[in-house]
């Protein structure tokens, strides 16, 4: 017997409270029919006896205490999945909005997913050649990794993401198996269009699943978008054996939606008003990347987040950095000087890089070169801060060499064209060429055998 519950007891932000509900289960989805015939969906987030709290995805506008009839669906939030989902455009909660009709599900999956057993994971080792010198050489992207881009408003993170998608797809023998899941959370329509257009131009649009929650779409839907996207990605990767690159932008909007929802629920806030469980919540998204034993596919994530006020210690980039396997940090002053991509290499890092490079993967000297570039560029920063006090003229000859090296490094190594695709050999050789402008004794991170081979100063 199906029961309709008429009316609600309380409305607060996007939450409604109902009383006298029997047989409800935690996290169950409910259908809410308004008097005007529209149907909204909600999720049970708290139960106390017969009193339940429901989060309404589309918002509570126009809901009154009396005008609703609510029905329990008996299952948690699920996503319909089939191989035809590739190439479709969905809204933030996974419903098609491209006018091509519903998806006929081969299978339905709970959007919350289940944690991958750590013993079933394959430790990711295959590197993805992005054709971007800074990333390939200094923070190598590995298949199955989660590597976010820490950016700020107005910086070129979108271009960088597009360039990665365009150039990464061609590498490796599995290029036919490649697809992209793109999740937009609270981004402007223009940005979503930019991505769509760029995918089209680079000819991958037919291999993209887009989930769009624009900035004026309901925030509750926004909290579902990454989960829907990753459910699709896991299906494609672990059941259809595809290599999936998931781009999620903008995680800051997601976290803000979560904060809004949490405060309307009356929860005790943690840092900067974000809920105390922000870490666990972000982890439940980011951890859904990786490779599994016995499956050929992989889920690689490139979340993009804009650091509020460019502050890397803000809770969102901070907690993200603790979960993800490194980060690519963009820098406003580099962008101001006209460098693209404006990657600030010192705080950037790839944790999985050390096992995915070197002999058999990229080239034997890769690790040593990367270490030396980092160390030398750190000295450039020291020399510059000294120069800003005592003037460049007063610097010691070695420090002057560093200043020179710093300019070359930013101009030639960091800076590269939006359409320029450098091979790993080109990037590594360029690195050695630049290091060769420094005295050999300054290269203290590299042993002599490698220096003999590559140092040309």
């Amino acid at each position, binding site marked *: 017997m199906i029961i309709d519950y008429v009316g609600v007891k309380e409305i607060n932000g996007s939450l409604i409270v109902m009383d006298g509900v029997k047989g409800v289960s935690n996290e169950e989805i409910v259908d809410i029919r308004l008097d005007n015939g529209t149907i909204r969906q909600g999720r049970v987030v708290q139960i106390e006896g017969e009193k339940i709290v429901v989060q309404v995805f589309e918002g509570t506008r126009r809901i009154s205490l009396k005008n609703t009839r609510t029905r329990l669906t008996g299952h948690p939030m699920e996503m319909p999945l089939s191989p035809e989902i590739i190439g479709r455009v969905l809204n933030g909660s996974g419903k098609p909005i491209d006018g091509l009709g519903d998806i006929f599900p081969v299978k339905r999956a709970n959007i919350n997913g289940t944690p991958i057993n*750590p013993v079933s994971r394959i*430790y990711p080792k295959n590197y993805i050649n992005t054709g971007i010198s800074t990333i390939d050489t200094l923070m190598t992207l590995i298949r199955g990794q989660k590597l976010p881009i820490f950016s700020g408003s107005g910086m070129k993170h979108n271009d960088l993401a597009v360039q990665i998608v365009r150039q990464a797809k061609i590498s490796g023998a599995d290029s036919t198996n490649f697809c992209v899941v793109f999740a937009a959370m609270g981004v402007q329509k223009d940005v979503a269009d930019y991505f769509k257009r760029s995918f089209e131009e680079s000819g991958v649009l037919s291999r993209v699943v887009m989930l769009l929650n624009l900035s004026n779409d309901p925030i509750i839907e926004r909290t579902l978008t990454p989960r829907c996207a990753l459910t699709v990605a896991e299906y494609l990767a672990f059941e259809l054996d595809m290599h999936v690159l998931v781009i999620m932008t903008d995680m800051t909007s997601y976290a803000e939606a979560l904060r809004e929802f949490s405060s309307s629920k009356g929860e005790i806030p943690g840092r900067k008003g974000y809920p105390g469980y922000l*870490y666990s919540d972000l*982890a439940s998204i980011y951890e859904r990347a990786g490779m599994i034993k*016995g499956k050929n596919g992989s889920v690689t994530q490139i979340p993009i987040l804009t650091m509020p006020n460019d502050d890397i210690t803000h809770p969102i980039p901070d907690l993200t950095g603790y979960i993800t396997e490194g980060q690519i940090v963009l820098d406003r002053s580099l962008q101001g000087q006209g460098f693209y991509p404006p990657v600030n290499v010192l705080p950037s890092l790839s944790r999985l890089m050390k096992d995915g490079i070197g002999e058999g993967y990229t080239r034997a000297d890769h690790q040593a070169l990367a270490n030396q570039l980092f160390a030398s560029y750190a000295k450039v920063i020291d020399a510059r801060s000294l120069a800003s006090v005592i003037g460049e003229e007063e610097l010691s000859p070695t420090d002057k060499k560093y200043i020179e090296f710093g300019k070359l490094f930013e101009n030639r190594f960091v800076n590269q064209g939006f359409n320029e695709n450098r091979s790993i050999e080109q990037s590594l050789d360029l690195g050695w060429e630049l290091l060769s402008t420094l005295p050999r004794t300054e290269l203290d991170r590299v042993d002599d055998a490698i220096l003999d081979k590559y140092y040309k100063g």
Partner: protein
Amino acid sequence: MENNNVIYGINGPVVTVKQADCFEMMEMVHVGKQKLVGEVIGITDDLTTIQVYEETTGLKPGDPVTGTGAPMNVLLGPGIIDNIFDGIERPLKAIEEQAGAFINRGAAVSSLDDQRLWNVTLKVKVGDKVCGGQIYATLPETPIIEHRLMVHPDLCGEIVKVMPDGEYRIFDTVAVLRDDEGSEHNLTLCQQWPIRTARPVKERLAPTVPLITGQRVIDTLFPIAKGGTAAIPGGFGTGKTMTQHQLAKWCDADIIIYVGCGERGNEMSQVLEEFSELIDPKSQRPMTDRTVLIANTSNMPVAAREASIYTGITLGEYYRDMGYHVAMMADSTSRWAEALREISGRLEEMPAEEGFPAYLPSRLAEFYERGGRADVLSGGEGSVTLIGAVSPQGSDFSEPVTQNTKRFTRCFWALDKSLAYSRHYPAINWMDSYSEYFNDLDPWFRQNLGDDFVEYRNRISALLQEESSLMEIVKLIGADVLPDDQKLVIETAKAIRVGFLQQNAFHADDTFVPLEKQKAMMKTILHLHTKAKEIVAKEIPLSKIINLGLFDKLNKMKYDIPNSKLEMFDEYIKEIDEKLAAFSK
């Protein structure tokens, strides 16, 4: 048992039961039809509050809740080593076999393999009086670890029956003990122990023996004792996990317990892979033969993350009681503290600093106090060394978890962002870090490595201090204006930083460095410094000495001198003397 206890309310991982009167505080319960594991964390006359260790999606009001009558327990027995568990001691390999690559809820698998046969040797005979902690049988758990079965600490009495030596499963009885009241207890190969209770010891001992880690900055500047406690705070990307891995791989403990608490799944798979490939230099066996992994990745349920730390330390104490030296790495205790905060928030408790519950310091203290070196009940000596990583929010060491951890640990290895950015690893900042074990360990170092080791260490540390204050000036006016003797300090300190403190974990010889080599390296650097100082005093310009390339040579001696050829240091000293002799004429 008649059961009327049913779920009343659900909020995230917290479940409430109305009008239940049979539950005890901290009792382990099974929740719902899938029998999810939970623990009672609050009781009022009206409501009982339970935290559930698994995802609560799909639970309904009215679902049954059954008590187990005992607190959260772990099963202790052979089969722990070389295994990987989740936060509440469920074996992940067995769960994989049962459920596949994704972890299902309510997985009912025994913590330890109950079918495997162990080759048991009995150590008692009928008529023996035995007491808690005494060893009644042994068995080889791995080729290098002998598992010693001990009488449960609460039992005491006379052995009335003994089975012959042979092969037994963990729940088989191998002996029977009659206590003073006349009731009989079957001694099997395993026992239960509540995770939140410390196991008893005979007597706590002073921390006078160092835990040798082979990491120069730790062993010489900030040593830790066996049974000591250390905190490794550092922002993301500063190398907490790398440092923990290095310690786990190379420290001279008998058994390693590695707790991945709320960390990355790929990191755990890396540990699994690396540890099984890595051969322990002492025993020539894979690392996994002496390692236990506890993996509760950040997306696994938060309540089990809270428990994982206690599970880890309980396993550690169990092996300590057998007379082993155990080192436990917890990565990261901040995630554990955050789990406390998260659950506390769900319970609507009054928050203290930054939303953490007011009982955070006492929980941290309880945990770190369970470390220590002790005379154990089985006779002999054992220890549990605790090394906890801390992930401060926004790399700010003034946040509550770092500050409170600092109060209860005696080693503080502060990781530094700017060192990490310039890829100076281990990025342990020598100015902010400290070890309170210096004095306790001093006699050991003097006895085993000679008085000069301590002297070298003090000189190195003084030079680094001096450099740090000189750098303040250099930052303002540049190094050129300093007098030569101060320039020499900066040059020597650079050799210490680059040649000595910085250590390459991926270099075959540099990843682990024996104490003798550490001493020889210090000696060589200081020798050059002393000689150069004499020459500078004669007003010969320092640049002439630098041009000899001696400092550069010392920067690379860590790679150039293999750990097996320490006599090469004599050649280095000879070379220094010869090259510098030219100036004395």
